[in-house]
């Protein structure tokens, strides 16, 4: 039972990450490869504030969101001058800078040894310790992020992002300011990515930089490319497929050493076939340009 609940927690964490990335990739049409950087910043902010300052969860979560939003705002000002490949490369650059910093700033982050003993959240003296309790907690956080994203999707802001995505010049003639709207999207996306970061750090109780690499960012982008983007169904389909598939492969009886590589090969082939046959993904409404 705990195994199924653990998968449920991971589905919730990646669901939040996919929803956060969807704002930029699906609504803004900007293929970002920096989502794991914000995920990591959220996780490290939570871990450091909890362990070094002993702050409670209801302070560390908003603090992690604020840190990611501020970094997203600063990074957005630089990266959103670019489009297409240059934007992708700028986000890769940012992802690498964050990773190298987390890995090498040993006095703060403990470098490759990571941070252990991260406290689980507790409210009014009641700690969330068991896996079932953590599953419910993740579900609540996921619900909050989902509702937040749904509100955004139904707002004029999402419509303006879609207009910019489809034809930036035409959208500008309607009075939509691209840089301002894209920076808002970047800030919302970065802030939303902090929540799964906090959730991950407090669930596993140990983090190191290898959880927040460029490969992780590529995986998050693949979730959207396989499942689809531009609506809320696509990311959910992508998360369900990409997280549940490797678990199903466990039951085929492949040796562990082979299973990991085979899973990646399936992802890669699927990416090529799907982007060719169904560019909008399994349930998306936007085909990447």
């Amino acid at each position, binding site marked *: 039972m705990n195994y199924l609940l653990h998968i449920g927690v991971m589905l919730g964490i990646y669901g939040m990450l996919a929803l956060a990335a969807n704002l930029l990739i699906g609504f803004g049409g900007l293929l970002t490869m920096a989502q794991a950087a914000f995920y990591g910043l959220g996780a490290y902010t939570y871990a450091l504030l909890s362990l070094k300052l002993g702050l409670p969860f209801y302070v560390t979560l908003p603090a992690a969101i604020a840190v990611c939003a501020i970094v997203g705002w600063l990074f957005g000002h*630089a990266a959103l001058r670019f489009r297409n490949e240059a934007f992708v*490369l700028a986000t890769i650059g940012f992802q690498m800078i964050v990773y190298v910093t987390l890995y090498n700033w040993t006095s703060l982050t403990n470098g490759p040894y990571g941070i252990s003993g991260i406290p689980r959240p507790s409210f009014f003296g009641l700690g969330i310790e068991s896996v079932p309790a953590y599953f419910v907690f993740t579900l609540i956080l996921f619900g909050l992020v989902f509702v937040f994203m749904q509100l955004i999707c139904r707002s004029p802001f999402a419509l303006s992002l879609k207009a910019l995505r489809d034809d930036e010049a035409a959208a500008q003639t309607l009075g939509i300011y691209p840089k301002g709207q894209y920076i808002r999207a970047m800030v919302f996306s970065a802030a939303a990515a902090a929540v799964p970061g906090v959730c991950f750090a407090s669930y596993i109780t140990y983090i190191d930089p290898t959880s927040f690499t460029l490969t992780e960012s590529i995986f998050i982008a693949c979730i959207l490319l396989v499942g689809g983007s531009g609506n809320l169904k696509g990311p959910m389909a992508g998360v369900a497929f990409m997280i549940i598939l490797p678990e199903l492969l466990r039951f085929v009886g492949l040796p562990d050493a082979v299973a990991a590589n085979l899973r990646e090969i399936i992802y*890669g082939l699927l990416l090529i076939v799907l982007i060719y046959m169904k560019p909008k993904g399994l349930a998306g409404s936007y085909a990447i340009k």
Partner: protein
Amino acid sequence: MNLFLQLLGNGIVQGAVAMLYAAGFGIVYRSFRVFHIAMGAQFVFSCYAFYFCACVVKLPLPLAVCGTLVLSVFFAALIERAVYLPFFRKGCSSGVVMIASLGVMIVVENAIALFFGNEVKTISNQLEPSVVFGGLRFTRIQLLQFFVGIGVFAVVGAMVRFGKWFKAVWAMGDQPELLPVLGLPLLRLRLLVMTLGGVLVATAAMLISWDIGMDPHVGMHYLLLGSVAVFFGGTDRYWAWGAGALLLSILQSLAVWKFSARWTDLVTFGVLIFVLLFRPQGLFGVSKRLEES
């Protein structure tokens, strides 16, 4: 001072090899307008093809080099015909082809890990003899890297500058649909670009893997360095890719002098973001009018 000069020398040697994989990325990016992520797959494939020829089949070195080049050319042609061309014929955007390219990278990297294992493989197990020039020490492989890197880059550069077909290749990057109208063989030119890129990447892969060995995941590192060098130098000029690669390698090497080897990636990507911000066309690139871009 001696350490500075040694690091500068090492940076120049690394730069000579980096010029090759940067050109391997740049020539496909410039001609297809595709962020050629599969270059990382080509790099890993070439490393392991060299390992297979030299250490598994135990061919003599010249034959192993030829075998690797042939295999790498076939592999490049396979990527073009099996992946890039169907997307091109369907009229897919560059973003879509980039994702397919990412798929190729993921498949190849993991297929190689499946067959050869995830551990590091080495080709040469001997201590390399070194040569001393004015107090600076270089290994025999470093000298080979420098001369082969500069030589191959210059030869391909001369082909790009003076070859009739390369004018068409450059035009292909701007308006591929015009080439058939002018009676030029578009599909053959695409194949030429991919195979030439394959040769450049394979040469770099052999030089690097012979020196420091390989693992199935090195491709992404060299893809990133190659693409950063191209954007750093300027995407539209062949010589700018080489200059970008050389400068970047020197900067990386000198970063060790002042900071530590652990921070070289920070220097690379910090420089990239700095250049993108203040000179988006690259250090040696030409700025375009809005309607040209």
